């Protein structure tokens, strides 16, 4: 959200000084037209106070609703409308105060047109300045986000590198292969193949690339097969989804860290056999993926989102500018991670 120009002290000072000058001019002008000091001041004060109030209102409104470029004529309408309201209220108040002074009423009616146009111009200026301010704010915010995105993509690359290497996973897999070579060479060969395919997948795919659910799940299966060899009967996984979802798209390599998190969490938090379940469904225009794993609520400190999930969340934020796409829930001894991927 852009900040209001009033959050800047200098702006507040300038705003106040300008209004002071306008007010003094207003009074002096009325005085020049022959009004008494008191009348000039009351007239000026009421008219300008209402106008200041209108300006503040407009600045606030623009804070929450900044029209698109092609809708700028809306602003003109606002400006006109607010001017009319300000003038009407001024008129009612002043005519009430000076009801018995006919000269003043005549003067007021004659000055109506000049007053309105001046108010309109002033209000127009304020609107123009705030539109420029808010646009500039938005732009610098976008700039910051872009820079952030670039920085994050660098981090993501680093993370990817680490993913490729995932030392713990890699060395343990090699250790399993080492064990298989002696006893079951055929299986050792198969695992070498799986590990190579998995690593190739991590290298080949770009962070920003989109893949179909089918491809992503095939890739995920490689990872799961390796983990299953490592952990044997302790780890069971199931993937439940309808083939009609095959062609839905998601960012490449998004699911593997989620699954990895679930496996780590599940396997190291209990000593029992565990089952990790991945479900994919379509909800409205979203691909919704839930991953569940068991955990021990008694000994696990509430971890929130682990590092793996954080990176998933950030990636989705960069793509959709939304922070609500990753959510987690711990219920009894089941931990559920839900990921939504909006479909174009």
């Amino acid at each position, binding site marked *: 959200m852009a900040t209001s120009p009033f959050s800047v002290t200098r702006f507040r000072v300038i705003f106040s000084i300008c209004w002071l000058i306008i007010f003094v001019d207003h009074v002096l002008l009325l005085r020049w037209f022959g009004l008494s000091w008191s009348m000039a001041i009351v007239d000026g004060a009421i008219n300008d106070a209402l106008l200041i109030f209108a300006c503040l209102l407009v600045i606030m409104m623009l804070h929450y609703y900044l029209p698109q470029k092609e809708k700028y004529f809306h602003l003109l309408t606002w400006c006109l409308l607010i001017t009319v309201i300000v003038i009407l209220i001024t008129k009612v108040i002043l005519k009430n105060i000076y009801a018995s002074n006919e000269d003043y009423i005549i003067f007021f009616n004659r000055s109506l047109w000049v007053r309105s146009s001046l108010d309109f111009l002033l209000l127009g200026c304020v609107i123009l300045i705030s539109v420029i301010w808010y646009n500039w704010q938005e732009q610098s915010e976008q700039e910051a986000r872009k820079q952030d995105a670039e920085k994050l993509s660098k981090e993501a690359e680093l993370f990817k590198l680490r993913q490729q290497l995932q*030392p*713990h996973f*890699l*060395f*343990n897999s*090699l*250790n*399993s*292969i*080492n*064990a*298989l070579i*002696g*006893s079951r060479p055929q299986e050792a060969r198969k695992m070498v193949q799986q590990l190579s395919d998995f690593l190739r997948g991590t290298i080949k795919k770009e962070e920003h690339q989109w893949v179909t659910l089918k491809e992503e799940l095939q890739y995920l299966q490689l990872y799961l097969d390796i983990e299953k*060899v*490592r*952990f*044997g009967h*302790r780890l069971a996984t199931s993937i439940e989804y309808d083939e009609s979802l095959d062609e839905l798209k998601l960012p490449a390599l998004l699911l593997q860290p989620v699954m990895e998190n679930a496996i780590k969490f599940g*396997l*190291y*938090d*209990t*000593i029992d056999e565990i089952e990790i379940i991945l479900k994919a469904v379509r909800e409205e225009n979203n691909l919704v993926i839930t991953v569940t794993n068991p955990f*021990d609520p*008694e*000994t696990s*400190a509430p971890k929130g989102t682990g590092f793996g999930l954080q990176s998933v969340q950030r990636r989705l934020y960069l793509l959709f500018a939304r922070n609500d796409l990753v959510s987690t829930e711990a219920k009894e001894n089941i931990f559920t991670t839900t990921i939504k991927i909006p479909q174009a």
Partner: protein
Amino acid sequence: MSSKVIIIDDEPLARSVVIEYIQNFPDLVVSQVCSNGYEGVKAIQQYKPDLIILDIQMPKINGFEMLELIENPPAVIFATAFDEYAIKAFEAHAIDYLLKPFNQDRFEKAIKKWREQKNNSNSEKQTKQLLDDVSLTAPQNQRIVIKDGSKIKIIPVQDIFYLEAADDFVKVFTKEGYFLKNKTMSHFEQVLDASQFVRSHRSYIVNLQQITRIDPYEKDNHVAILRSGAKVPVSRTGYPKLKAILGL
């Protein structure tokens, strides 16, 4: 005379490769293979092995936490795939470790080294120092693992009410009563987060989250009343420390 060996690793293939290598040593007998620290503790008590081959990352309690639960731990050869911190700790204490995957030669070297040091009582001290060192780091300092009879209890530090010194042990008070841990008060003072736990007395460390009020007690002393109703003594030197951290 043959020596008894226990293998503790959560990955079946990792265990089988060690079994395979051990078969080349006729004098080494594998008493049992265990797939986690819980089984490990039991097996070590039952068989009193001469050597354990121990993985570090394991379910529930890791290799270090498991060793803490054993009174006179046997000689250990650690086997780990990748654990930057553990490796630093091993090197700092000159303890032998195997990096997975390791081959027969490397394994033989480790066994040879173990045989050389077998009669050297120094190794037990080294292991102890290693454990002290390791327990200062995350995630070990987020929880305390305690043996309660035949059960193993994992206590997240935020669940601790207070600690009380009891000879060579420390009583760890929680909502389920107290558990004994064979560590010193100064060890806990080092391990626990100083902004959460304060040594209010020579024999007491209290969890600040649990304090409801502090009352005067006898002449110079105070007593902290916890949410559970327990009263924890606060000494003359402990009081200003508590006050400073609580911002009183």
